[in-house]
């Protein structure tokens, strides 16, 4: 079965630094998502992306967050100035009526 891939698997950064999380969606899928899971909590929707623009974003997805599909294959999530509370697993997903999740990037903000 085709897979969503994500890099890096673990990112450690200092508070206030910028991070970029990368995802390679399943080829030919058109709908992309980022979700977040704080340790021990449920998976939360961050943003959906279609046709090179944001379709919907949650309250979590504030001005510090941005998404981009820079080259037609990668899908990135940028956090401009990380905060301690941004520490979480970040999952990329694609959807064709069912959602396919990547393995996640563990972001640790120190």
């Amino acid at each position, binding site marked *: 079965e085709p897979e969503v891939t994500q890099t890096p698997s673990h990112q450690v950064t200092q508070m206030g630094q910028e991070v970029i999380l990368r995802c390679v969606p399943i080829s030919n899928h058109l709908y992309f998502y980022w979700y977040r899971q704080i340790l021990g909590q*449920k*998976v939360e929707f961050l943003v959906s992306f279609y*046709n090179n623009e944001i*379709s*919907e974003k949650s309250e979590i997805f504030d001005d510090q967050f941005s998404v981009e599909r820079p080259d037609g294959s990668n899908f990135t999530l940028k956090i401009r100035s990380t905060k301690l509370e941004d520490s979480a697993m970040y*999952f990329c997903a694609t959807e064709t009526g069912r*959602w396919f*999740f990547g*393995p996640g990037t563990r972001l640790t903000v120190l």
Partner: protein
Amino acid sequence: QQQVKQSPQSLIVQKGGISIINCAYENTAFDYFPWYQQFPGKGPALLIAIRPDVSEKKEGRFTISFNKSAKQFSLHIMDSQPGDSATYFCAASLYSGNTGKLIFGQGTTLQVKP
């Protein structure tokens, strides 16, 4: 209301037993109800899913029961095995415009004892 409420928070079952996890929702606009299995350090993996026009769906040892009038759905794992020990999330999808989103329940940590 976009919440999906899941119970119990944790569950311990003996090998060979039946594991039952329940979820409830309020929003009748939800139109797709998947269950995900998650192992530590991994992403959620789709286990089984149902649409509201069906009351039950079975795939191997996993069954979803769906009660549209009560706005409830449940996952039954028959003949539970130690390898089933994981966190299980119910979810519901909601579409707005071109894209949908999944609303997840709080998760149930299942431990199957040998």
